[in-house]
């Protein structure tokens, strides 16, 4: 009896303990993870704010003229970003011109045309290419690619297309052409792997229908797969453009770093990212530093817009695998 009473006495207390377990740990943990997840929001705001507040004086002094002026003279404190914007756009477009056809063709090869056994090794190799640090590609660019370009393709290009303004004059080494090619190599892996995921997400029904109508392999790829995936492939291209615009080290090492606007691709150029890399530690005056922060702001603005666009395009057809390839 005494025992039963003891148990009876204990049960309610155990129940009250069970009924009100501490939720403090759960709450705290949820808030902690929430705070960590919100760092991505904080990072974007912080970056925008820091770049803006670092360049207010320059923005006040130059205004929109900063984007259209082509003089970059730290000594006279005249700063215009046009040569850098021009260099960034031209080198990136050149890179896209090379990388987009190659990347999409490779993606089509990997998903549609290649024998099965060759696919996985090729994919692994492309992932390895993506892992090469930019500075190493730049080193290779300086000592291997530029001499090779000067000896073989350039004389040939001059003979063939020398009459156009784009291939006029002599190439002494570092040049817009070298910059564009290096950027192309840097963005090829991402364009290829994102395009591949997009082509993979094309439903098999598309292919089967084409084959049932008697299409050859290439016809099925062109009509049923590539045209079906047009929008996603465009997203992949824009994503590649975003990476191209921000590519820094390899370009800095081969583009020549001369703030000029020259039509010829054999002439040296300069990009937004390169001027930051080269001149940031040399900025001796406040206005110089402010102007460089403003360059950073322009670069941040352009790349964030391009990336937003790319993500929106990719989201509409997004499968998990596509977003995974983006990383």
């Amino acid at each position, binding site marked *: 009896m005494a025992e039963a009473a003891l148990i009876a006495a204990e049960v309610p207390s155990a129940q009250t303990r069970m009924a009100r377990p501490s939720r403090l740990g759960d709450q705290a943990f949820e808030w902690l993870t929430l705070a960590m997840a919100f760092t991505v929001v904080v990072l974007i705001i912080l970056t925008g704010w820091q770049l803006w507040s670092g360049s207010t004086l320059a923005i006040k002094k130059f205004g929109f003229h900063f984007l259209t002026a082509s003089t970059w003279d730290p000594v006279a404190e005249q700063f215009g970003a046009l040569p850098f914007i021009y260099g960034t756009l031209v080198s990136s477009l050149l890179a896209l011109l090379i990388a987009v056809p190659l990347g999409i063709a490779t993606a089509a090869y990997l998903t549609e045309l290649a024998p099965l056994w060759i696919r996985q090794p090729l994919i692994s190799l492309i992932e390895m290419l993506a892992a090469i640090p930019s500075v190493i590609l730049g080193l290779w660019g*300086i000592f291997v690619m530029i001499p090779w370009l000067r000896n073989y393709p350039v004389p040939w290009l001059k003979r063939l297309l020398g009459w156009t303004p784009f291939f006029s004059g002599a190439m002494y080494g570092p040049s817009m052409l070298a910059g564009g090619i290096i950027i192309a190599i840097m963005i090829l892996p991402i364009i290829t792997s994102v395009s591949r995921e997009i082509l993979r997400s094309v439903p098999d029904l598309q292919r089967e229908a084409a084959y049932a109508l008697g299409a050859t392999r290439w016809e099925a790829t062109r009509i049923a797969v590539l045209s079906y995936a047009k929008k996603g492939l465009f997203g992949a291209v824009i994503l590649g453009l975003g990476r191209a615009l921000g590519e820094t080290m390899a370009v800095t090492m081969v583009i020549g770093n001369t703030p000029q606007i020259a039509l010829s691709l054999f002439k040296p150029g300069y990009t937004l990212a390169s001027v930051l890399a080269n001149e940031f530690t040399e900025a001796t005056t406040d206005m110089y530093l402010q102007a460089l922060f403003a360059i*950073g702001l322009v670069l941040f603005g352009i790349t964030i817009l391009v990336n937003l666009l790319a993500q929106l395009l990719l989201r509409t057809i997004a499968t998990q695998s596509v977003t995974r390839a983006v990383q």
Partner: protein
Amino acid sequence: MRFETAHQHTWRKIKSGLACTTAFVSAVLVISPLGLVFCYLLINGAASVNWDFFTKLPAPVGAVGGGMANAIVGSLELLALAGVIGIPVGVLGGVYLAEYGSARINSVLRFLADVLNGIPSITWGVVVYGLIVLRFKGFSAYAGGFALALIMIPLIVRTTEEVILLVPNGYREASLALGVSRWKTIIHIVLKTASKGIITGILLALARVGGETAPLLFTAFGNRFWNHSLNQPIAALPLQIFTYAISPYDDWHRQAWAGALVLVTGVFFVNILVRILTRGSGASVV
């Protein structure tokens, strides 16, 4: 009704063959830089990778020899600093996305993380320069590590989230049914089950930032000597390669090739390790 002639049929087949060949050539062109870069690294760098390279400081201008011991150690220190900040923030952020958070908040956060991944890495250098270097009046290892951490965070958030989503719900339910609180369930059951995939993501993020130069240029700044305090500028392998590559000295060029060979070997080693780790287990993504 008109049937195609045998001639037309052959022509279509030839066209298909030509297209396949073109696509094959493209694929070869895409991967050829990998082989070319690696071959030249071996040709130009292998001879200079010796005992001195790993144990000595850089030689003064004009003197032959020397090594990059300080840069290798510096890179590891920077990675450790970046990891201390980037790994917990990234993993816990990924936990929020996978375990808590409404669908709407999550899609916004995911979107922003992907956008952040596309921001040029030099931007983080500029931001950290403004936030830390200007404020504390000097380049430092802390600033460099912080810049690298900022690059790691969105990468790790995304990979962690994806791996955690693969953990079957039954595991969580079983644990909760035993009266384990939710946060303990997440730490002991969910994170433990997903640990292999999470570690894979962390390793890849470290390999990625280990090769970064741009965000270190004006945060860690580089140093020709040993770093004795994390408040001081510190050397890093990619920075040293950059400095040497654009210098006018042949001996420095040789050192740059050797450094590049060591760096690329490290990065490839991690990538291959990850591939081996994840082989055979369908649950591990990335």
